């Protein structure tokens, strides 16, 4: 046997994409570029059922034609990537990059990782009752640790900017990476040769190329969410709190104040501040400076006080900012005309909610009135908000705002809120951590209609359990477990079981 080290090794490329992202076309472009660049190419894929939104892997091996001609025989190229043996991994999304790493295809000794850092959430992240998103920071760190070189940025945004699919941006980043021995021009020719959408592809390709060249191997930090822009008048109002509160608390409370002023009026925001006062005092006494309980209470109270009734929804729907945003998102051009249709499904409950308390409960309790209201809302209502009549109808509902304080729902919310605050204060006097956990529970009440009823019922279970946990050694973690159980399933069976188990234990 003669020298085995002599022939060059094929360059191996694995593409991790999602169905419908144009991974096949990206593969074609790579094939085209490599063939023009004097390489022999083999490419394959296993689309299978994954063509429908699942994860798909394309695999390409290329080998210099000249070396094959010198040897006088064809190279034998593999049909699937082997862990540790991949030169270039292209991932169309951050979690897919993670998948490539998990499967061992990205290794520090040889892999150039080209990954888009945007997220396409998986179904279990999307459908969870709570927040089930995976840890993006960990995934970014993994990219840095696993690969020899990394080019990672939001290529979907680049593609969107150019009106193309992400494949063109990925290809641009590949061209700029220098991982393949071909000139930029060869890559560009491959894109141009592709008949459909050549222009937008070209634009995305170039934009991503430029960005990738500027992109050092260092990771980009995730963009931090900007705190809400605060009106100076609001900040001024809270001046007296400034020396007492941490920056974070102040900012959050400012947001709360602003929200409630917008929701109702100044007086309503003052009520909010009054509710927070005991907690501010409590945190000062505690003197830790992290204000954890205050933060939770301030957050939950603001959201609770700004509950979503028909008046609020109508008000938000008719705002000029909203219609401007919709126009912008639609990318309205020239003579195009845009219409907005809103979907509602008011039931008797929602109608009674905004009526004055006495009338509201009368409607709820009188069968004939119920029937009448049910008929109003049955089958849902669509409102063409961009027509004069449609807009006016929402406008009228929104103008019930001054009457809100007398409404049935307002009274009920107020009572429930003060009951909750009392309970927290009671718990906080004995067990600060348990109070923090209990404060976190409030935000699980959300949604409209049945959803609201269901989440409120779950909350009630927790609210009943919390005071009983007082004095137990690991009360906060028990309550946290109950809260997590409440977010397991819509039927509430996990919560029921958890509570039952608690009773036994």
């Amino acid at each position, binding site marked *: *046997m*003669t020298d085995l080290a002599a*022939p060059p090794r094929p360059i191996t490329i694995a593409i991790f994409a999602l169905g419908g992202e144009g991974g096949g076309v990206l*593969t074609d472009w790579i094939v085209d570029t490599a063939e023009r660049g004097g390489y022999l190419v083999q490419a*394959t894929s*296993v*689309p*299978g*059922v994954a063509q*429908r939104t*699942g994860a798909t*892997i394309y695999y390409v091996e290329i080998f210099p034609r000249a070396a*094959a001609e010198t040897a006088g025989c064809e190279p*034998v190229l593999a*049909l*699937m990537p082997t862990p540790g043996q991949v030169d270039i991994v292209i991932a169309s999304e951050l*979690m897919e990059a993670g998948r490539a790493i*998990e499967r061992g295809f990205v*290794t520090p*000794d040889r892999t150039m990782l080209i990954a888009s850092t945007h997220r396409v959430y998986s*179904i279990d*992240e*999307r*459908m*969870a*009752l709570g*927040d089930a998103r995976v*840890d993006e920071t960990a995934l970014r760190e*993994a*990219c840095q640790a*696993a690969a020899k070189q990394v080019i990672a940025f939001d290529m979907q945004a680049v593609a*969107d900017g150019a009106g193309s699919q992400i494949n063109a941006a990925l290809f641009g980043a590949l061209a700029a990476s220098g991982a393949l021995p071909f000139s930029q021009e060869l890559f560009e020719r491959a894109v141009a040769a592709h008949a459909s959408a050549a222009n937008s592809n070209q634009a995305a390709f170039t934009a991503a190329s430029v960005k990738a060249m500027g992109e050092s191997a260092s990771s980009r930090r995730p963009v931090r969410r900007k*705190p*809400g822009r605060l009106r100076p008048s609001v900040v001024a109002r809270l001046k007296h709190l400034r020396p007492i509160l941490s920056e974070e608390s102040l900012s*959050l409370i400012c947001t709360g104040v602003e929200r409630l*002023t917008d929701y109702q009026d100044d007086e309503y925001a003052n009520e909010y501040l009054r509710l927070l006062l005991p907690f501010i005092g409590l945190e000062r006494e505690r003197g830790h400076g992290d204000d954890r309980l205050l933060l939770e209470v301030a*957050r939950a109270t603001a959201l609770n006080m700004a509950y*979503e009734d028909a008046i609020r*929804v109508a008000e938000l729907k008719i705002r000029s900012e909203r*219609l401007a945003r919709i126009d912008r998102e*639609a990318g309205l051009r020239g*003579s195009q*005309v*845009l219409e907005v*249709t809103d*979907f*509602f*499904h008011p*039931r008797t409950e929602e109608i009674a909610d905004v009526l004055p308390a006495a009338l509201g409960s009368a409607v709820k309790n009188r069968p004939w009135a119920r029937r009448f209201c049910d008929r109003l809302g049955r*089958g*849902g*209502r669509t409102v063409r908000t*961009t027509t004069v009549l449609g*807009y006016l109808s929402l*406008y009228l509902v929104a103008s019930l705002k001054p009457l809100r304080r007398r409404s049935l729902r307002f009274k009920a919310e107020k009572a429930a809120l003060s009951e909750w605050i009392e309970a927290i204060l009671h718990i906080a006097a004995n067990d600060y951590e348990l109070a923090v956990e209990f404060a976190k529970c409030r*935000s699980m009440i959300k*949604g*409209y209609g*049945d959803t609201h009823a269901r989440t409120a019922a779950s909350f009630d279970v927790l609210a009943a359990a919390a005071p009983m946990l007082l004095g137990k050694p690991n009360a906060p973690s028990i309550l946290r477990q109950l809260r997590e159980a409440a977010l397991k399933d*819509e039927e509430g069976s996990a919560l029921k079981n958890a509570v039952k188990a608690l009773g036994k234990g």
Partner: protein
Amino acid sequence: MAERSFQQEIGKLRLGEGQEFRGEGILAVTKALLQSGIAYAAGYQGAPISHLVDVLNDAGDVLRELDVHFEASANEAAAVAALAASVSYPIRGAAVFKSPVGVNVASDALANLASGGVRGGALVIIGEDYGEGSSIMQERSHAFAMKSQVWLLDPRPNLPSIVRAVEKGFELSEASNTPVMLELRIRACHVYGRFQTRDNRRPPRTLKQALAQPIRDTGRISLPPATYLHEHEKIERRRPAAVRFIEDEKLNEIFEGDANDIGIVLQGGLYNTTLRALEQLGLADVFGKTRVPLYVLNVTYPLVEPELLRFCAGKKAILVVEEGQPEFIEQAINTILRRAQVATSIEGKSMLPMAGEYAGSVVKAGLLKFLRAYRPELAIKQEEARSDDAAGTGQQKAATALKSVAGNVRPRPPSFCTGCPERPIFTAIKLIERELGSRHVSCDIGCHLFSILPPFNIGNTTMGYGLGGAGASAFSGEAERRAIAVIGDGGFWHNGLASSVANAVFNKSETVTVIVDNGYTAATGGQEVLSSAPERDTVRTTGNPIEKAVRGVGVEWVRTLTRTYDLRRTRDALKEALTTSEKGPKVVIAQSECMLNRQRRVRPQMAALAQQGGRVVRERFGIDPEICTGDRSCIRLSGCPSLTIAPNPDPLRREPVTTITRSCVGCGLCGELVRTEALCPSFYRVSIVENPSRWERAKARFRRAVIRRLQRRVIRRATVSA
């Protein structure tokens, strides 16, 4: 004709002598069929061979020029039955489908065909859907070759080898009067490569000529007493003839190496993987030079005894690299060597896993075990290399990375496409289950099977294509909670009309059968079926409504829904079917065109119309982030890919907000959900009118002006109160 154009591919079918074909493996097979002078082909679509069927469907001109008949068969049994034309006539033909599911369906025809044998070459091309990305149960088609005594080709996965296998396959079939199966794995079907083409050949005898001079050979008909004779003929004449041909034509390949006291026997399809593993162990190079001798079985059934014995001569051990289970080849080799009293040790499943795909790392691990046992000095080199590297920081970094990704990579099961018309059917079932309790749901094969996965989690079993109704037949009696059977239009025409619907009528079933009628066999790439819209298919006869067929076999209770997106109607029809006191099977036909194919068809049309100044309305949905409270009931009831989550712009909220991406096609289910289910009022529909009329524009201007005035009042009111 699917909603995709295959003109470019069809061009490749016309390549002539000495030209270079570049393209996919399965298309190379298509070209090789024409080069082999077939007179006819028949097939049923399914990954990974759909492309062959699609291209031949569209290649009418090429086929006419060559006098080749192509038929899109009703199912795989029909495709193999078409090979009957090669029984008595010297005519070549091919059948193609996905396997092993296709062979399962076709096995009746295949057994009959194999019994009598063939005169003209008969090739069955099977796309073996096994391993990663497979959509079916994991079995081997190999067993069918053994039980029916048909020969099984498993060529090396490069285009020249695949093309040669097609051409030699016909010769082998004729030399041994036996149908031949050509097995191609998923990756081989999709592999991009090159080969030198030859001219296409017109069949020496056409179907018309055969019909003009019918031949009747009762000896070839599988009917007793001929069947008894057939069995003997298979063993005594056909099989030896096949073995002789395989040996003479060197269909199997031996690659010698210097470590010749050991050897590897492998399926041709695993050659590239095995060679790469050897290369990584430092025992082969990229051009296929190997130190360990290889016996590559491009024919995996039958084995060629003399060849095998020659290969094993002087070897202390061989390793059989055979994917899947049971290990038919290894068992056969054991028998052959034992009978010949050859002492060579046989390793195989002892060192390689019994089940699962043979990926590169799997084969490498098996090879290493084999070398350690029989040539440890060859294995040492590899281990040294590894320990050098292990000390490096690379391993550490990789370990850190693995720790970071742990738990942060979630599965991505396939799901209904954006705007899929099947989604509202399962949303409706979910709503009904909330009201009337959960149901036993018998599923079928097709996109609708995704109902089993999140977010719907609907479906108890699936028994095979067209068998959704039959799968519920044991539960067909009177019951408080009637069972539901789901079946697609693909499965319905494949065999569901008889097996699921007629069966239910005959047995007085009470089951509710939902027939998902989206106009295509969508899961296999959007091919037309008997009930597809007639204007879309000019080649075959379509436009035969399912309702007519269902009524024709005696179903009385039928409801046809013409728009599945109308959620309330869909729900009410299903509810009625589940609760009606009428006796007998209840059938709900839920129609709406497959959105993937619809978009392929309509999008270019709309773009062209807009370009020409025509009025075009585009719709999509949106969610107001300030109104969405982030409960995501909507996602759990829909699961549309365009309905997803985003970081919450509200600093008061931590949990993600729901959002609709630009991929939304405006199917309307979101809005229907709000109307039907009292979901949150954050959904809105945007209609963008391109090239609106002057009246429309004036109207819009007026409306906007009034709205702006009102908005100014809103702002004034807000500033006053604040």
